[in-house]
């Protein structure tokens, strides 16, 4: 019964994202993330390398596309109207200047935001009209809506593209996660705002688990798996509010430790989760003298590691708070052992 329910839920939340072997799957427009570029820039770097070199995808990006503004929307410095027109501008540039029809974003908040405005345009003709008119007035550009998943108005997230190509990536992998326990932490703005737009929905999200399974990992579950990381926009932004972030991370990791003390890998797809679930482990160690030592890697970093990219130079493991070497040793990924941990992280 349990499995039947799971399969049914999965059926309901099947999302169609073309792999490189399917029509439209080898040419993508991509929207860069201001959060990634400021807090975890290496992630974009290794994601580009994998998409281009290992999957042979052509990525097109316009010089004039901007970030989506959604950090400001949830951080209360702009409006829904702003979000709609900025999104329309980015879509228009991708389609009319770059000639791409399939688009993904690198940030889960952009993904949710683009999904939100697309749904609003569908449901509220007045808002569609407002956006078209304002876009024209402010930029002279033509309105265009992407239809990525299954031909309906939609965009997808970069991790969806990795998921769609997971078997190909696993075939190319030099290392496997066999014998490694791992779990996922799916970004709230990927899975919770529009569960129907997430691979597997909010109940059984497959986007990261699918990748982990393809690479051979043993997936573990724990009670607080779906608890938010506590990034919270205005909470993580200001030190005085960050107890909320640290508290949320503590709650999650204590729950994981209790259920599976031997699980030291959480895979993520949101810049906020990737940065703060790692960083707050340092705070917790200092304040509570409790160590979790769980490596937080995002889908591109982990894929890069398994494909044989350099853990530090390519996958950017330099800037993490939790030491990553124990995990590399466990998987069997080599690194320069003649250098100290510090030397590996500080090349200049």
């Amino acid at each position, binding site marked *: 019964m349990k499995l039947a329910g799971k399969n049914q839920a999965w059926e309901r939340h099947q999302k169609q994202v073309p792999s490189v072997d399917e029509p439209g799957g080898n040419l993508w427009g991509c929207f860069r993330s*201001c959060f*990634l*570029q*400021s807090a975890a*820039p290496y992630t*974009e*770097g290794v994601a*580009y390398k994998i998409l281009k070199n290992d999957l042979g995808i052509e990525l097109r990006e316009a*010089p*004039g*596309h*901007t970030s*989506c*503004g*959604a*950090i*400001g929307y949830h*951080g*209360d*410095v*702009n*409006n*829904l109207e*702003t979000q*709609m*027109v*900025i999104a329309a*501008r980015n879509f228009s540039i991708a389609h009319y200047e770059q000639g791409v029809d399939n688009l993904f974003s690198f940030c889960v908040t952009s993904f949710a935001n683009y999904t939100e405005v697309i749904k*609003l345009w569908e449901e*509220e003709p007045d808002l569609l009209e407002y956006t078209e008119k*304002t876009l024209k007035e*402010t*930029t002279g550009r033509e309105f265009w809506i992407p239809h990525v998943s299954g031909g309906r108005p939609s965009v997808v997230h970069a991790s969806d593209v990795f998921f769609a190509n997971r078997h190909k990536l696993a075939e190319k992998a030099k290392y496997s996660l066999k014998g490694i326990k791992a779990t996922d932490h799916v970004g*709230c703005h990927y899975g919770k*705002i529009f569960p129907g737009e997430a691979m597997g929905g909010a109940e059984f999200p497959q986007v990261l688990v699918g990748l982990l399974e393809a690479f051979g990992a043993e997936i573990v579950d724990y009670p607080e798996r779906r608890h*938010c990381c*506590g*990034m*919270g926009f*205005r*909470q993580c*932004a*200001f*030190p*005085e509010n*960050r107890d*909320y972030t640290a*508290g*949320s991370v503590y*709650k999650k990791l204590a729950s994981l430790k209790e259920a599976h003390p031997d699980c030291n890998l959480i895979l993520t797809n949101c810049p906020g989760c990737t940065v703060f679930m790692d*960083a707050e482990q340092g705070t917790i160690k200092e304040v509570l003298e409790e160590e979790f030592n769980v490596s937080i890697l995002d889908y591109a970093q982990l894929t890069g590691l398994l494909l044989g990219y350099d853990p530090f*130079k*390519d996958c*950017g493991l330099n*800037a*993490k*708070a939790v030491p990553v070497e124990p995990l590399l040793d466990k998987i069997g990924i080599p690194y320069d052992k003649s250098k100290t941990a510090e030397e590996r*992280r500080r*090349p*200049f």
Partner: protein
Amino acid sequence: MGKLFNELKQDILYQHGMNACLNCGVCTAVCPAAEFNDYSPREVMNIVQSEDDELIEELLKSDKIWYCGQCFSCKTRCPRGNSVASVILALRRLAIHYGYFAESEKGRQQLIAKRVFGENMLKRGYTLLAQNISPSHFPELGENWEYYYDHMREMREWWGVPMDLENSPGSHRMIPEQDMEEVRTIYQKTGAVSLMDAVEKGMEKKLGSKAEVEKYWQTWLETGDSRNYEIK
């Protein structure tokens, strides 16, 4: 039904976020903000449903609406298809519009939000910039991050994501001036600029002068905690 509720009702985020709340408390049960603060999404939904302007005004002047972390866990779980997170967004805009945000400690942080990341879109076309994640305000990122921050340009080159170039392959490139003009016009026309202006004005009214607003800002810059500025 008063003026405030009437205005709230016009907001599309309220209309889409509120389909009648049955007061079941599921949102509060899953809410991470409710766990760590004096905050309950169910209470927020009750207050707005009362349509009582006095209660709504009190809510807008309180810290409560600022505790929400915008994770939307409440939206996923609500049996009535409500989205407290969206109602919160509508309430926060209303609080800024009427200057009520400046009455609460968490609300006043809006000045910091406006100055730290609000203006970035107008200057660079990004909401967050590499320079925003400074080690002094993010000590938990640790010593490795400090090293990165001190060697930002070289490290980014090394990782293959150079910064501040035009149309570079990596992130954090310079966006052409013509595109920046378009973005500024959009922010002006869609009300984002006046929303940000309202934050400066509301703070000035609350603290008494522009000079006091600067003192509040300096206090935060130096100590990373706005509570160190004492309101007279």
